[in-house]
């Protein structure tokens, strides 16, 4: 039970990666607050709630651009579990008309991805600062790291922004022994992070051209552990060898 006494908050939107992280943390003894934005995710979360009674709190989020909604979600989670240790954001969205998006779509993409991460994390910072402990992991896309044919410009910018955000949080919050890191995911089995031409994000490892959602969960586990205390402001390029830096 590697995360026996920990509380993890996972904000998931547009991807199955958040659910995979929730499963992982629950199996390792943690209590988990899981935000989800779809009926399907809610359904899965409710099943998990039954398997781990008292340890999973499922919270429905209508709109990741809504600061009030995310603040209220945090209040609910903190009331239920009393504290928070690990914050994971896995919030993304599929662009609709890339690369010809109009103003409205551009704003939607940017704010869902960037504001969603910020507003999910922000309301917990007082708790983390008081505890002098925190593990923040922002999951982003390969498209924010390098040229990916077919990617939407707003999508690429927003996901790149998550890297900057993680570095900044690592920089400003390090004094409270809070770490913040980023995972840039390539092609995953549910296609959630590869807004690109078909195959353009695929990995190179035989048998692992698409990453599993459990691979993302494993990388989150690495960054969220107590012993990852000296890793901060880093971006893990989790893409099966598609892009290396």
């Amino acid at each position, binding site marked *: 039970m590697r995360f026996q006494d920990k509380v993890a908050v996972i904000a998931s939107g547009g991807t199955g990666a958040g659910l995979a992280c929730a499963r992982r943390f629950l199996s390792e003894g943690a209590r988990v607050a899981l935000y989800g934005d779809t009926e399907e995710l809610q359904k899965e979360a409710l099943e998990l709630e039954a398997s781990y009674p008292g340890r999973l709190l499922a919270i429905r989020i209508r709109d990741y651009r809504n600061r009030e909604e995310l603040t209220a979600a945090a209040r609910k989670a903190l009331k239920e579990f009393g504290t928070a240790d690990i914050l994971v954001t896995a919030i993304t969205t599929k662009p609709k008309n890339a690369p010809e998006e109009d103003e409205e779509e551009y704003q939607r993409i940017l704010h869902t991805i960037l504001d969603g991460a910020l507003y999910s994390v922000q309301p917990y910072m007082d708790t983390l600062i008081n505890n002098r402990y925190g593990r923040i992991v922002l999951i982003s896309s390969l498209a924010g*790291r390098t040229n990916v044919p077919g990617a939407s410009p707003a999508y690429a910018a927003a996901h*790149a922004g998550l*890297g*900057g955000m993680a*570095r900044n949080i*690592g*920089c*400003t*919050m*390090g*004094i409270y*022994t809070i*770490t913040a890191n980023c995972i840039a995911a*390539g092609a995953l089995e549910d296609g959630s992070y590869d807004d690109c031409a078909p195959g353009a994000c695929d*990995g*190179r*490892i*035989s*048998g*692992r051209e698409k*990453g*599993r959602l459990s*691979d*993302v969960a*494993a*990388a989150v*586990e*690495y960054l969220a*552990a107590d*012993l*990852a*205390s*000296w*890793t*901060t*402001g*880093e*971006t*893990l*390029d*989790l*893409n*099966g*060898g598609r892009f*290396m*830096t």
Partner: protein
Amino acid sequence: MKKLENRVAVFIGGGSAVASVALKYFIAEGASVLQVDVAEPYFERTRDIREEFPNRIHTFLGACTSQEDMDQAMAACEEQFGRIDIVCNFAGFHGAGDVTSVLKSQWDLAMDVTCLGIYRSTKAAFPYLKKNHYGRIMNFASIGGRANRGVSITYAASKAAAIGLTRSLALELAPYGITVNSMAPASLDTSAFERIPEHGSIPHEPPKGALTGGPGATRGGSFIPDRPLATLDEIAHALIFLCSEDSAFLTGDCLDINGGQFMQP
């Protein structure tokens, strides 16, 4: 569930302080390990755990500067443990000097140990990893090869070469189900270990005006207060991740472990 159950690892430079601590973690996670190093005194550091697990930890005397030694080490591992899954390349040589003062002998040794050593051990291990269509190769680099840091020119170049070699090997070995990654820690807390001087090393004199190596030498400094160094336990945690099935989708990456001293996009 243990992360390295029934896996077999070869530690090149297994007598180093980092590897000596990592060994405890590898054993706890279910692995067996062949420690390879150039001289017996290095193995003294892990005598206790070896006595506790005689069937799971063996030693081999050999240098990564010799292809023959590496070939024999891998063959010995296969013979003694029945397989190879993981190769951890810990061996490195600091070297001394700046661009005006560096001796050819220092340059050659740094490149030979730190960069070519990885090539030799990988070449030797490849047939055994290929056989199982599985492999984890970890190359121990340094922030000295990633950032502007007041280390010797030999260190900066050979560590950066090791990181570049990591990427090349990652691409080449991906079709065989083998991942290759590196890690780039900043300064480590090796105070628990008595220093064994590197064979061939000479004192390093930083040029006038250079930032000397050590915590805070990179612009920015650590953002995590009250301590300037990584612990070897923190390093071991990252090693377990890179050497286990948890990192199946990660290859050609370099993990930075520096307390926030250097954050590159």
